[in-house]
């Protein structure tokens, strides 16, 4: 079997397992609905500030993009034919600790709160979607093309990690509920694969966010 077909097989297996994984679907549905709600309330100025802005863990975008989009808001006023140029704000307020904390705590929070019957996991997933939707609208509106593209890319990779971590949390919660009912503790072995994938994605996200936002 060639390398190409091996990769194809892995991708196909992953796609099939994702399609069959109901917990992943639940997490994705919660996240997307919350994202749409967050985007809707921001795009109509229902809220003019970031939702949950103070809680960095469940707020993946605003802090990172703020200095960039702030430059965008300032330059919003500038005439198109004007030759005046202001340097974009270059100092990033975030460091490696901020990046690590946000990614690691998000994942750990979503997985570990699954033991509380999965309810906090569902709530936190909803809040991540809500705040991300509300933030991305202003980033899109005010940031430059490169910054907006960078932010959307990082948000997507962050969301993948959130969905996977949330699906583990929800699965753990449902396993505990089943255990309470039937006295049998059963967990699908796929959960271990998912946990490994979450760890890998979180590490990749930290590296990507460090390279694209901090450096």
């Amino acid at each position: 079997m060639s390398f190409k077909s091996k990769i194809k097989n892995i991708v196909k297996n992953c796609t099939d397992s994702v399609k069959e994984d109901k917990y992943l679907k639940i997490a994705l549905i919660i996240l997307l609905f919350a994202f749409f709600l967050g985007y809707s309330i921001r795009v109509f100025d229902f809220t003019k500030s970031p939702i949950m802005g103070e809680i960095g863990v469940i707020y993946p975008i605003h802090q990172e993009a703020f200095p960039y989009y702030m430059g965008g808001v300032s330059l919003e006023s500038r005439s198109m034919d004007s030759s005046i140029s202001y340097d974009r704000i270059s100092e990033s307020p975030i460091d490696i600790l901020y990046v690590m904390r946000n990614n690691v705590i998000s994942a750990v929070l979503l997985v570990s709160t699954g033991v509380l019957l999965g309810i906090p996991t569902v709530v936190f997933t909803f809040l991540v979607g809500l705040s991300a939707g509300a933030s991305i609208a202003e980033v899109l509106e005010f940031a430059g093309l490169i910054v907006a593209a960078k932010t959307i890319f990082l948000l997507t990779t962050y969301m993948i990690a959130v969905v996977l971590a949330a699906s583990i949390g929800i699965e753990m919660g449902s396993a505990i509920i089943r255990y309470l009912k039937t006295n049998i503790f059963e967990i699908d072995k796929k959960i271990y694969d998912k946990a490994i994938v979450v760890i890998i994605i979180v590490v990749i996200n930290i590296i990507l966010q460090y390279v694209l936002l901090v450096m």
Partner: protein
Amino acid sequence: MNCYKIVTSIILFLVIVSPVYAQVVMDEDMAIPISMDDENAQINADISFKVEIDETNMETSEYSINILNSGNYSVKGYVEIYMVFIPKRIKVIVDGEEADIITQEKSYTNSRYRVNIDMDADSNRTIDVTYQILKTPRQWNVGLWALQYNYNSPINLQFSSKKEDYVRTNFNYEGKIDLGYEPSKLNCNNCIQDGNTITVNDSDYFYVNWEKKRVPYRAGVLYIFMIIGIVYYLVKMRK
């Protein structure tokens, strides 16, 4: 018996008087010597200004400050110009001569410039400040449909004399702010709005805030795509 009464009276007198005396002494120590005497240094600043903010929010301002020291002491101090962005240009002329501007702070959120001013007793000086700067909206609570702006005087005067560390300065503003577009939700404090013009008359302080309307095209396009996707999905699932 009488002796007993006298001793008691003395003790009571001491008990009552000593804390009262202590309070009086403490109040005297703590009292801030606020000069109410007209003979002390007194600064009056008549500030006239003309501000134009065009459609692209480029602000061009001209301030003329007439400072009068009507006291019997010479004073030392400075004129400080505070801005929330980096100005494109700034020029300060003191009594017809261009002054050296000391940059205190220069960033995209705060810029402060200072010119030192010394004044003899009973003298006056004229300071002209001109600058051009991009008027930036408020960076928090950023609306996608309207950006909020505000304006107040960037001029601050601070003086001290050999007698007093802080010499009170009386401000008197008079001038106009012309906006190159129709402001919405304009809120004037110590000023009068007439269309796009805001007038300040004989006031020691003024503050204006307003909104400039806009349409969120970029965020709106993505939202329309989302709605189309949802409608398409609903129609598809209905069949």
